[in-house]
């Protein structure tokens, strides 16, 4: 289970790096979003293999057979923050499209060098 998650994290990180190396802003932003998901998956993997354990909800059973709830709390926070960042980046994309009519990094006007 942990091995599978680790491979998935690796694949997600690799694809997001590939996306971010492009020159097209939409792709770059998608790469950043994907990187966040990879990080979340890596964190959830630190709560060890959940096989044979109960969900971390008290009621009925003792706390001993529960999955470690803290990584889940961590990624909940990280997901919320990720949402905000994604919204901001998407807004930025729309604004720069309206202003420059292009999302290619090479075509976005470069400031004259001093």
């Amino acid at each position, binding site marked *: 289970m942990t091995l599978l998650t680790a491979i998935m994290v690796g694949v997600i990180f690799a694809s997001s790096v590939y996306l971010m190396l492009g020159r097209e802003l939409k792709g*770059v*932003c998608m790469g950043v979003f994907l990187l966040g998901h990879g990080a979340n998956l*890596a*964190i959830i993997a630190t709560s060890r293999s959940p096989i044979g354990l109960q969900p971390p909800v008290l009621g009925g059973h003792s706390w001993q057979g529960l999955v470690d709830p803290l990584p889940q709390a961590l990624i909940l926070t990280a997901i919320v923050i990720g949402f*905000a960042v994604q919204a901001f980046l998407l807004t930025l994309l729309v604004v720069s499209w309206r202003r420059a009519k292009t999302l290619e990094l090479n075509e976005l006007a470069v400031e004259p060098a001093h």
Partner: protein
Amino acid sequence: MSQHLIVLFVVLPMLAGILSLFAHGRRTLQAFIGLVFLLANCGVAIWALITVCQGHGADAGILVSQMGNWPAPFGITIVVDPLSALMLGVESVVCLAVFIYCISQLSDRFGGGFFQPLYHLLMMGVQWSFITGDLFNLFVAFEIMLMASYAMFVVGTTPQQIRQAYKYVILNLIGSTLFVTCAGLIYGQLGTLNMADITRIAVSGQLPVSSIPVIAMLLLVFGGKTAIFPLWYWLPDTYHTMPAAVGGLFAGLLTKVGAYVMIRVFVMMFGSSQEVSSIVAPLIIVSAIVTMFLGVLGAVSMHSVRRILSIHIISQVGYMLMGIGLGIAAVSGLTPTQTLISREMAVAGAIFFILHNMVVKCCLFLCGGLMIDHAGSDDLEKIGGLLKRAPWLAALFMIAALSLAGLPPLSGFFGKWVLVKESFNQQQYSLTGFAVATSLLTLLSMLKIWSYGFWSPPQGKHVEHPEVRPATAGGLFSVALLVVFALSMGFGAQAYMNVSRYAAQRVLDPRPYIAAVLGEQHSPPHLPAENTVVAAAKLNPLASNGEVRR
């Protein structure tokens, strides 16, 4: 009981942000709300600094508040120790000064609308990262700070500058993602994210070997935020596109937060772990040399006020790294007691330098802003003759610039003096040489702004630029406030250095911190032999502390 007041460092800016959001569109009302809350914030910061410095007994001057009264490693802890208190004290004054500048000097294009709510939220993030006692909360605080900074970055930008915004936003996002991954992995390795608890594990030598690569990876995260070599490339390209006031705020606060966190993590949390220090310290020292020297060479080659000042941030960060590196590096040729004192002085020097830099760097950016407003351009080829047209500005700029270059008796001198002396004591001669050379080149680049901008006759025919706005009283007042603060750090250097040294002691010997956060029973009975001499070198921080900040 009163120690729970430290939560105000987060609550006050948050309230100010929300209230001024509701006052959207009414700039005067927003400014009034902002001033009231910022003054209150300064008051709380001074109270915290005095309380922390007076604490000598069991609490040892560390204010702790457990959110929701959950006991320490399980809940969220906020802590103000001498290091945080010093940072908060100076930061709150700098924020007040920049705010006065912004409300009186910025045009509506930049300063109107949602600028002020963002300003308070940025401050909330900065102060939260100073007081948090938990690695994951540090991530959240960073995100709040960065989110506000992204938005402030794009306010009023031209299409060209949007391109730079992507660079800033995306590089910071990658850094944050790396940080949250590291935090998760550290939790997986150590089973805790509480800083005091992690410190306890490191001090008692129980750090699992597999956690060391993750900890070293944190250097990459904080190095990116602090703009150290080789992670500084985003900074010179982005800071100069902002209005000078925003640039000053970012220059004064954001990279310094990174430096503060590096002290907290690599000196306090993992400084006692040989395994971590032996990896991190050489990296930090090499990076310090390259950072300070390349940064200043860049500044000498630039020809625009804002560009010179922004690339200077990098070179100054090199000095902070130098102190951090000397605080944890392996030392040869000194007795254990000498080593401890030398480390303590190096960290104290780094802390003093961060405080000095917050004030002076910010002040120079504000001066640069006033110069640009006077001349309508920030290209040194086009402006000139400001000495006659704005003599007060010239005087203020000169004091700030000489402080940055480090001429005695101004504040930059004392920070550099301590750092250079300790690098010499620890036989890191290349560090000594580069630090002194960088200092000379700093003076050169500052004189360049001085002679082109102020002293030379106006070049060519002076074109009245449409965006020329003469300096307002508020703008000059805020610069003068920062200059007076910088002067007090120069002439009262002994007092500031004593408090910095007290903070450095608390950072290098984290037992009181652990005891204050986790409770006495968790305090490790003894430190590795070389750390126990700290007690011998105790000095009384109150000796001259009463007058530190009036």
